[in-house]
């Protein structure tokens, strides 16, 4: 399924589930959002205490487990690690912080646009610029170094944690926090969310769909393969939003969004920049983590901690806009990711 058809179908599956999950209870324009949902998971296990965004999202568990299952079946499950895990962890934290200042991962950015949220246009501009800057680093020889085959056990750890989370979601013990209001309290029935996650995980693993990769490949090697998936998500989400009456064009009053254009742009710039250095967007990293890539599993934990920091220190945006701390964190993040990038070019040259 590495042809055009595969990637278009994957985009269609994501777009359709994105629209459908909203219909079944997920927050508006948030049928699927890797960043928001990892943030909700961070809240539900108490890593942050923002009461309105705490829920063990079965979609994310499904992404990892779907990719894990299909990779096992196709023989692509391969346990690797050792490619600068701590640098990846830090970059991932800032990718998440950038996404939470914009209010969405690259995937939700496309779903927001498909719901008529024009603020997403600024996000896309920032994301594209971030990917282009990151691509320049790659051109100049940036690398986080090679990974190696490692002990198989490590590859099972994240999928097993996801199984544990799934059990906790189903039995709902008292120490797991579930929002009583706000976006965290808006969710589709868990079994459907899980199935959606599994199906998307399987398709995404087979097609290698990646939001950052689409723009990167178009620019670096004039290859439009991955960007086709990006466009497919938009088209199908747009159609389903029209059918369900969830297309509401405009800037103001959009669900889980703000109109602070500069910070929509810069937040997504940071996310795009960091994602290219990591080798993929949050969705792709989550899928890779299921395939046994422990560097991506470390990246996943970086997202989780980044989300906790974003909410514990008031960096995450809200409908009313971006705090001073949030703005500072984005600029600081661009500097830190840039410094990791520059030093990783120098290192690759001196080796």
């Amino acid at each position, binding site marked *: 399924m590495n042809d055009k058809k595969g990637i278009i179908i994957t985009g269609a599956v994501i777009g359709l589930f994105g629209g459908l999950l909203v219909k079944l209870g997920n927050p508006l324009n948030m049928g699927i959002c890797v960043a928001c949902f990892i943030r909700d998971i961070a809240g539900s296990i108490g890593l942050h205490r923002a009461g309105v965004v705490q829920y063990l999202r079965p979609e994310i568990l499904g992404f990892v487990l779907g990719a894990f299952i299909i990779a096992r079946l196709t023989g692509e499950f*391969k346990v690797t690690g050792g490619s600068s895990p701590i640098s990846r962890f830090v970059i991932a934290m800032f990718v998440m912080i950038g996404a939470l200042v914009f209010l969405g991962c690259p995937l939700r950015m496309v779903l927001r646009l498909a719901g008529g949220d024009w603020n997403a246009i600024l996000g896309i501009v920032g994301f594209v610029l971030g990917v282009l800057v990151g691509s320049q680093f790659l051109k100049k020889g940036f690398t986080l170094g090679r*990974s190696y085959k490692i002990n198989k056990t490590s590859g099972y750890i994240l999928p097993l944690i996801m199984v544990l989370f799934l059990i906790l979601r189903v039995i709902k013990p008292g120490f797991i926090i579930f929002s009583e209001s706000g976006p965290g309290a808006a969710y589709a029935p868990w079994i459907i969310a899980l199935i959606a996650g599994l199906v998307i995980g399987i398709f995404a693993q087979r097609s290698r769909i990646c939001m950052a990769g689409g723009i990167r490949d178009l620019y670096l*090697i004039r290859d439009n393969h991955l960007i086709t998936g990006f466009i497919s998500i938009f088209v199908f989400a747009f159609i389903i939003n029209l059918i369900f009456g969830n297309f509401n064009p405009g800037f103001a009053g959009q669900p889980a969004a703000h109109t602070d254009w500069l910070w929509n742009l810069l937040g997504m710039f940071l996310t795009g920049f960091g994602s290219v250095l990591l080798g993929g967007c949050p969705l792709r990293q989550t899928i890779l983590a299921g395939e046994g890539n422990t560097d991506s599993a470390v990246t996943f934990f970086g997202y989780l901690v980044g989300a906790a920091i974003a909410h514990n220190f008031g960096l995450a945006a809200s409908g009313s806009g971006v705090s001073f701390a949030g703005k500072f964190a984005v600029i600081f993040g661009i500097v830190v990711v840039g410094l990791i990038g520059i030093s990783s070019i120098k290192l690759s040259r001196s080796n």
Partner: protein
Amino acid sequence: MLEVDTRGRSCPEPVIMTKNAVSGLQKEDSIKVLIGEEVAKENVGRFARNAGCEVDIEEKGNEEYKLIITKK
């Protein structure tokens, strides 16, 4: 023959390393690209074919591949 070892490099580094190596090729010159995973094999193969090269894939076992890329 120039050998490019992309094993263990994360996406899209194998493609960029191949691209840099291919850009120096004359007609009918070949390079050897060592690849450690399925995804990189697809990506490098797709890139090389799009760049007007012939691609010969040799499986080395243990999920490693050797691609011989020849400029047409």
